[in-house]
C-alpha cells in the first residue's frame, strides 16, 4: 500500500465507522457476551468442541468419498446432485432450473452470495426474493452482507425505517421493530404466495441419509421449502459430514457460538425431496413429486483441501464467533473487515481460497493476531495463523520495491519479494531498537523531532499522533550483567528480555529480575531478544522462523542445564508456547513450550511451592486496575497475575475487553490509528467508571502499556513493577 492509499484507507475506515460502527458495535458485543454466558452453562463445552473438530477433520479428509456417497444417497431418494466446479458453472446449472419469469424465494445462504446467484438469475429474467429479514433489507438497500450470520448487522432500526419509507412509501408509520417486522413479513408472505422455486443453502449435509440441516430462527427456510415444489439447495462441498449423529455437537454449538443463544428456534433436518404438503389452489396437496436439486460448489475448495495451510478453513461452520469476539471487527464491521463475500477473521482463509489473495489483501491486516477468536471458534481453527499465511503470501507477491534500498541495511529480513516498507520496518523492529538504544538519547530526540515524524509517516506510515517509544541507553542485558545473584539459589532461570524490555521498557525487566532474585532464583539474561513476533505479525514467516531458530539455539542449552525460561512480554511468550509449533521442529518446540513461563505465572508457581511472599512488596490494599494481555488471556495466564496481586493484598478490578487495540504495531500504522483508538476507547471507559477511576493502572503487555498511557494520560507499569522489592 502506498502512502496515498494509506491515507485513503484511513479515511475510508473512518467513514465506515461513522456510518455503521455504532450498530455493529452494539450487536457484536451483545452476541459475544451471549456466547460467554451460554457456553458457561454448557458442562461439556470443551468436549463438544473437540468432537466437532474431530468430525470436521475426518470429513474433509474423506471428502471425495463422502461426495460420492451423498450423491448416491440423494439420487436414491429421488433428487439430483450437481457438482459445480466454479461460480459460472454453478450459475449456469441453477439458471437451467428456473424459467425466466419465475419467482425464486431464497433463505439466507452465504454460498449463494459467494457465487452471486441472484444477479445471475435476475439477468436471466427471474424474480429473486430474499426472505430472511436481514437479507431482504440488504436486497432492498442494494448492499452487501456485513456479517456471516446477521447480514444487516450494520443497519440501525432508524436506517431500516428510513429505507422502507423511501422504497415503499407505506401507508402507516413504521417506527418500532414490531412495525418493521410486520411490514416485512407481510411483504414476504406475498412473495411466498407467488413463489415457483425455493432456494436454500445448507449448514450441513449428511452422507448417510442424504439429509440437510438448516439453522434459522425466523422460519423462512421452512417456508421456502414448504411453499414451493421445486427445491434448489446450494452448498459448498465442505458441508458434508458422514452421518446424522455427527450433527449433534454442531446443533449444540452453532447458536451459542454465533448469536449467543442455546439453540436457534428452528433446526431443520430435511431429507429431500421433502414430502411436506404444499398449498394447492384449494386444498393442501401431498407433494410426492417435489423436484430437488443439490448444487455442490467446489469453487476453489478442493484446492484448499490440498493446501496444507488453508485446509483448516474448510472446518469453518460460519458461526461468526470469530467476528463477534474481534475487537477490531466490533468497531468496523464486515464492510471493512471482509472481502467480496466473507467477513471477520476467517474471511482471510475463505476469500483467499474462493476469490484469491487480492480480495484478502484489502482487509487481512485488520487481524492483529490477538488470538481471542481461537478459543471462541467451535472447531478450534487457528484463524490468526491463517491470516499470517495469507499476509506472507501477499508479501511474497507484492511488487512495490521503490524504497527497498533504504531499508535493506536496516531490515535484514529473510523475505523475498517486495513487501511494503511499513511491514519491513515493523517486522524488523529489533534492528531499529538496537540502533535506537545505542544512540539514545539522541535517537529519541530525532525520533520525536517533527520533520522526522513526518518522514516516518510518509515513508513508513507511522502515525504522527502516536508517541514514539523511548530508547534506553543502558540495555537490560548490560544492567543485569553487573549484578550478583543469590548465593544459594533454589532455582535457576534464563530470562529472555524481549526487544521492548531490553531496549526500551527496561524498568519492567529490572523489576522482574529483582523479584526473581528476592524469591531466591538465579537469573541469567539471554543474549537473544527477538522472538520473531514482530516479523510474524507482518506475515514475514521466514524471518520469524529465523528468529525462532536463534531463540532455540540460545535457550535450549539453558533448558538442558535445568533452567526455566521466563519472559515478561505475553506476545513473545505466546511465540514459544504456541506459534513455534508452526515454525520449528516438533521436539524443539516442545522443549521450549514446556519450559517457558510468563513472569507472574512463574512467581505464582514459586509462591505455590513455598517461596516467601514477604520477599515481595505488600499491596496493603493499594487500589489497582489491571488489564491483561489478549494472548496472555488466550494462554489462560491472566488469572495467575490476578492471583498473585490478590495474595499480596492489592485491591483489584480488571478489564474485560478482548484487546486494548494497539496490538503490536497495528495502532502505530497510519491507516489503522482510528480503529485502534476506537477499540481503546472501550478500555478507557471501563477504567473511567467510578469503581475504577483514580486507581493505579497496570498492564501486562507492552502494546497495552503504550495504548493505555496514551488513553489514560498516566504511566502504566507492568504488575511486576508493583510487586518487585
Amino acid at each position, binding site marked *: 500500500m502506498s502512502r496515498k492509499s494509506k491515507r485513503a484507507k484511513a479515511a475510508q475506515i473512518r467513514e465506515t465507522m461513522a456510518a455503521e460502527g455504532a450498530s455493529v458495535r452494539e450487536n457484536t458485543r451483545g452476541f459475544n457476551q451471549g456466547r460467554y454466558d451460554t457456553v458457561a452453562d454448557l458442562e461439556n463445552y470443551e468436549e463438544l468442541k473437540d468432537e466437532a473438530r474431530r468430525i470436521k477433520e475426518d470429513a474433509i479428509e474423506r471428502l471425495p468419498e463422502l461426495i460420492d456417497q451423498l450423491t448416491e444417497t440423494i439420487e436414491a431418494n429421488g433428487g439430483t446432485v450437481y457438482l459445480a466446479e466454479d461460480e459460472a458453472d454453478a450459475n449456469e446449472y441453477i439458471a437451467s432450473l428456473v424459467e425466466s419469469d419465475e419467482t425464486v424465494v431464497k433463505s439466507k445462504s452465504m454460498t449463494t452470495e459467494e457465487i452471486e446467484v441472484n444477479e445471475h438469475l435476475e439477468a436471466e429474467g427471474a424474480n429473486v426474493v430474499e426472505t430472511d429479514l436481514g437479507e431482504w433489507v440488504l436486497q432492498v438497500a442494494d448492499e452487501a452482507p456485513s456479517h456471516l450470520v446477521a447480514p444487516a448487522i450494520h443497519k440501525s432500526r432508524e436506517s431500516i425505517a428510513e429505507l422502507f419509507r423511501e422504497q415503499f412509501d407505506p401507508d402507516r408509520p413504521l417506527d418500532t421493530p414490531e412495525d418493521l417486522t410486520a411490514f416485512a413479513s407481510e411483504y414476504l408472505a406475498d412473495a411466498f404466495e407467488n413463489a415457483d422455486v425455493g432456494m436454500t443453502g445448507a449448514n450441513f449435509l449428511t452422507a448417510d441419509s442424504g439429509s440437510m440441516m438448516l439453522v434459522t430462527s425466523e422460519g423462512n427456510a421452512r417456508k421456502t421449502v*414448504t411453499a414451493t415444489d421445486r427445491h434448489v439447495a446450494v452448498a459448498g462441498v465442505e458441508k458434508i459430514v458422514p452421518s446424522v449423529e455427527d450433527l449433534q455437537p454442531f446443533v449444540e454449538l452453532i447458536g451459542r457460538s454465533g448469536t449467543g443463544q442455546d439453540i436457534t428456534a428452528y*433446526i431443520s433436518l430435511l431429507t429431500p425431496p421433502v414430502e411436506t404438503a404444499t398449498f394447492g389452489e384449494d386444498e393442501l396437496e*401431498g407433494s410426492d413429486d417435489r423436484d430437488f436439486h443439490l448444487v455442490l460448489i467446489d469453487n476453489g475448495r478442493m484446492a484448499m483441501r490440498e493446501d496444507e495451510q488453508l485446509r483448516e478453513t474448510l472446518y469453518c461452520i460460519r458461526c461468526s464467533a470469530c467476528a463477534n469476539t474481534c475487537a477490531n471487527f466490533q468497531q468496523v464491521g464486515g464492510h471493512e473487515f471482509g472481502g467480496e463475500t466473507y467477513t471477520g477473521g476467517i474471511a482471510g482463509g475463505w476469500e483467499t481460497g474462493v476469490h484469491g489473495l487480492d480480495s484478502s489483501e484489502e482487509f487481512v491486516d485488520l487481524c492483529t493476531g490477538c488470538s481471542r477468536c481461537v478459543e471462541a471458534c467451535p472447531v478450534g481453527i487457528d484463524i490468526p495463523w491463517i491470516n499470517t499465511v495469507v499476509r506472507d503470501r501477499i508479501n511474497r507477491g507484492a511488487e512495490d520495491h521503490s524504497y527497498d534500498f533504504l531499508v535493506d541495511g536496516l531490515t535484514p529480513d529473510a523475505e523475498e519479494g517486495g513487501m511494503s516498507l511499513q511491514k519491513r520496518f515493523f517486522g524488523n523492529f529489533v534492528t531499529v531498537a538496537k540502533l535506537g538504544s545505542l544512540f539514545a538519547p539522541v535517537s529519541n530526540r530525532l525520533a520525536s523531532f517533527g520533520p522526522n515524524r513526518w518522514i516516518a509517516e510518509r515513508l513508513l506510515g507511522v502515525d504522527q499522533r502516536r508517541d514514539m517509544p523511548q530508547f534506553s541507553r543502558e540495555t537490560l542485558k548490560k544492567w543485569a550483567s553487573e549484578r550478583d545473584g543469590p548465593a544459594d539459589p533454589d532455582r535457576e532461570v534464563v530470562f529472555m528480555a524481549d526487544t521492548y524490555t531490553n531496549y526500551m521498557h527496561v524498568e519492567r525487566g529490572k523489576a522482574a529480575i529483582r523479584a526473581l532474585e528476592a524469591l531466591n532464583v538465579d537469573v541469567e539474561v539471554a543474549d537473544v531478544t527477538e522472538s520473531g513476533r514482530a516479523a510474524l505479525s507482518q506475515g514475514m514467516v521466514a524471518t520469524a522462523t529465523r528468529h525462532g531458530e536463534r531463540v532455540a539455539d540460545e535457550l535450549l542449552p539453558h533448558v538442558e542445564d535445568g533452567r526455566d525460561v521466563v519472559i515478561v512480554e505475553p506476545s513473545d511468550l505466546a511465540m514459544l508456547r504456541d506459534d513455534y509449533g508452526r515454525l520449528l521442529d516438533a521436539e524443539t518446540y516442545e522443549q521450549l513450550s514446556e519450559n517457558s513461563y510468563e513472569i507472574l505465572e512463574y512467581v505464582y508457581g514459586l509462591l505455590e511451592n513455598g517461596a516467601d511472599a514477604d520477599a515481595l512488596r505488600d499491596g496493603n490494599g493499594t487500589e489497582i486496575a489491571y488489564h491483561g494481555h489478549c494472548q496472555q488471556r488466550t494462554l489462560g495466564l491472566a488469572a495467575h497475575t490476578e492471583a498473585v496481586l490478590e495474595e499480596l493484598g492489592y485491591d483489584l478490578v480488571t478489564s474485560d475487553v478482548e484487546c486494548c487495540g494497539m496490538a503490536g504495531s497495528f495502532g502505530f500504522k497510519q491507516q489503522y490509528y482510528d480503529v485502534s483508538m476506537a477499540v481503546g476507547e472501550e478500555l478507557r471507559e471501563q477504567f473511567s467508571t467510578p469503581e475504577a477511576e483514580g486507581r493505579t493502572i497496570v498492564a501486562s503487555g507492552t502494546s497495552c502499556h503504550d495504548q493505555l498511557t496514551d488513553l489514560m494520560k498516566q504511566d502504566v507499569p507492568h504488575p511486576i513493577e508493583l510487586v518487585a522489592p
Partner: protein
Amino acid sequence: MATTAGDATVNQFTAALEELDVGWTLTTTDELPGELERFPEPIVGVPFPFEDVSLPESIPRAERSDGVKAASTGVTAATLGIVEYGSVVVESKPPETEPVSLYADTHVAVVRLEDIVDSMSDAFAELGPRLRETGGNAIIATGPSATADMGALVRGVHGPSDVHVVIVK
C-alpha cells in the same frame, strides 16, 4: 428407546419451556380434547402418527390451503421432546404437519410423556436411524419464530409467534 419418564422429567422440561416463554399443559388422553378445544379459533389440526393418542374428532382437520394459512391455532404431534433445550421435534408425517405447525399464529405441539428425552445426544440417537431408514423431515423447534434483524427481538416472523406444548401422560 432412550426415554426418561416421570415427574422429574416433566419438571425439567416444563422449566425449560417456561424459560422460552412457551406455554405448557400436562394432561391425559381423556382430557386432551378439552385441552385443545380451548385454543383460539380458527383451529386446524393434523392426525397424529401415534397408536395410543389421536387428534380429537372435535379438532377440524387441515384440508384447505386458505384455512391453514389463516389458522390462529395449528395442532400437530411432536415426536420427541428434549428436556435440556425445551425443544420439540416436528416430523413431516403426515405431510400436512409442516405447514400447519408453521403457518398458524400459535403452534400447539402434542408430545407423549414417554417421548421426552433428556439430551440432544439422546434425540440424535433416535433421529439418526429414522432419517436413514425412512427419510423425511425433523424440525427441532425451540420456542417461537423470532428475529432481531429490525433492531430488537421480535416474535413471530415467518413462523408462529406462540408455541404451546401439551404433554400427554
